[in-house]
């Protein structure tokens, strides 16, 4: 739980230009009123069910479990949401809030493009103008999602500054908000940013964990989710936090390896710092300059992490571990072969850790993996990587 200025322990807070402080206060107030209003929940539930297709299934991955020969692996199928990822749980909630606040223009940042697509989708449905900031590097990697957003009527604004990825897209979205704060609602896509975003986004995503709990006869032994900014992880963890017998594991991207500096493991390798409005673990040098992150998965390619994760790490309530690009790719392929499910590369990180864990755990234990998104968006990239790996092997 956070305090009134949105601190989770020492983490969180509101480190933003003064220009935004009143807007954040208004947002907090509007959100608290909405959260206390049964009509808001009723409307949100309507869209979650009838538009996005919730509840999402909790699927026992039988062949994967048998293949690994240990604990049972269940997949929380967030990939079956409309638009193909958990992101829409949050964008539906925030778009309804924007409408309540009378805002006509929506902006968002996106990395992999999943949050951008989910934002463009709800903006189309509610008839709101929509602009999406996306790093040029991600625009290149995620061509299909860029086209999707444009089809949905959003304007995609490529960001060419800095590392040209999610961090820089977030900078530009914040600048836009500073300039257009009166007319514009900024839908942040993860449990990051200044208060009240980390709490609000977590609450909108907490439907994942609540459903999971209802769908299982008993509490699971393990809940595993990938962590970039950390919204699917907070979403599935939240309901289980008060149950210490459930072990919560967040999986960060180790990229090409933790020793290479080409990774995105803010919790594992970072230290305390301020990025995008909150205090959390971040990747930065001794001068406080933000370091570029790296992951095969654009959605995890972020040098910060949500402040509540930092708090859960310090308290020991959740453990955080890492998975490399190669391990994630292997898990990606395994799920395709064994279960006929193409996972997002982000989700493949959570899966890769589950696949390491399951064989070491008894058969009567249960592991829930948050399958946060589907991998259609990643198919071209995976094809390219597999082809280049093949040609590298053949040349040896």
């Amino acid at each position, binding site marked *: 739980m956070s305090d009134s*200025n949105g601190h989770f322990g020492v983490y969180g807070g509101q*480190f933003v230009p003064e220009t935004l402080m009143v807007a954040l206060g208004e947002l907090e107030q509007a959100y608290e009123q909405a959260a206390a209003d049964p009509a808001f929940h009723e409307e949100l539930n309507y869209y979650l069910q009838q538009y996005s297709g919730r509840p999402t299934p909790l699927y026992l991955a039988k062949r994967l479990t048998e293949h690994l020969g240990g604990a049972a692996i269940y997949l929380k199928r967030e990939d079956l949401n409309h638009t193909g990822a958990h992101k829409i749980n949050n964008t539906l909630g925030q778009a309804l809030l924007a409408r309540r606040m009378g805002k006509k223009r929506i902006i968002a940042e996106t990395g992999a493009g999943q949050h951008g697509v989910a934002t463009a989708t709800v903006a189309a449905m509610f008839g709101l103008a929509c602009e999406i900031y996306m790093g040029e590097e991600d625009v290149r990697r995620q061509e299909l999602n860029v086209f999707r957003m444009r089809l949905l009527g959003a304007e995609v604004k490529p960001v060419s500054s800095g590392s040209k990825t999610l961090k820089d897209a977030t900078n530009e979205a914040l600048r836009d908000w500073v300039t257009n704060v009166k007319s514009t609602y900024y839908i942040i896509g993860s449990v990051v940013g200044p208060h009240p975003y980390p709490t609000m986004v977590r609450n909108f995503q907490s439907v994942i964990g609540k459903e999971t709990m209802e769908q299982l006869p008993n509490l699971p032994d393990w809940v595993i989710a990938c962590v970039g900014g950390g919204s699917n992880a907070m979403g599935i963890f939240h309901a289980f936090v008060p149950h210490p017998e459930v072990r919560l594991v967040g999986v960060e991207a180790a990229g090409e390896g933790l020793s290479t500096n080409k990774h995105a493991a803010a919790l594992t390798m970072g230290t305390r710092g301020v*990025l995008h409005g909150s205090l959390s673990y971040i990747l930065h040098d001794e001068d406080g300059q933000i370091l570029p992150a790296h992951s095969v998965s654009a959605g995890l390619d972020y040098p910060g992490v949500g402040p509540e994760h930092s708090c859960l790490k310090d308290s020991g309530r959740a453990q955080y571990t890492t998975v490399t690009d190669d391990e994630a790719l292997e898990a990606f392929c395994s799920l395709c072969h064994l279960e006929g499910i193409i996972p997002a590369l982000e989700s493949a990180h959570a899966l890769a850790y589950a696949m390491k864990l399951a064989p070491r755990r008894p058969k009567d234990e249960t592991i829930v993996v948050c399958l946060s998104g589907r991998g259609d968006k990643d198919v071209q990239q995976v094809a390219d990587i597999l082809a280049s790996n093949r040609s590298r092997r053949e040349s040896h």
Partner: protein
Amino acid sequence: MSRLQKVFASDRKALIPFIVAGDPNLDATAALITELAHRGADIIELGVPFSDPVANGPIVQESCLRALAAGTDSNKVLAMVANLRNEGGITTPIVLFIYYNCLYRRGCRSFVEKATAAGVNGLMVPDLPFEEAVELHQACQDSGMDLIYTAASTSTPQRLRRIAELTTAFIYCVPLAGVNDELTAFIERLRTTNKPLTMGFDRSEPEQAIRLASLVDGVIVENALVQMIHDSPEPVQAAGDFVHSLRKALDTKV
């Protein structure tokens, strides 16, 4: 009375050029500060480069990235300031404009102590609203460093009052872009606080500076100067001439 407060005790409008330390390198920055101090600057606002300067636009961001690529860091910036004070004979007050993470990473208190020892007179932290500034405020108070708070035209009257109470030398006023009629009302709200007011100015025509100076007590020259330093083949001369032209305009018209 601090050195910064003394600037605003005089009748003339304060002229405050902003430059990014280390763009193109710190030797050039030292030469620029020296020139600006001699050509009519009352205060130098020195930006410490940061990789993700969200409170600035693309001109300052690009300038920061050039400075970082040249190897600039906050320790070297402080060493340069100390050298200007000790060897260069520069007495013009210097305000560091620094993003909170650069300060936090070095340790709030330790950074403030080092900056004070180097001869920095004030700090301006663009991403630190007063709610989060308690530790830094105390550290500044203990070191005799001025901490300059920002007021935005979106700030509520209660917030403006608090900002005016806390700021120790002047208030940096940020209007919303393109909302001119609200500007006068914003300044009027702040006038009741009796704190000196400064505002940023992004153009290169002295007439604009004069118009702005009729509203506030000090004018901060921002993007136009940063861009000029980057574009000009003789940046020190160009920046000096520009600031001198603004000085003359402010002194004759206001």
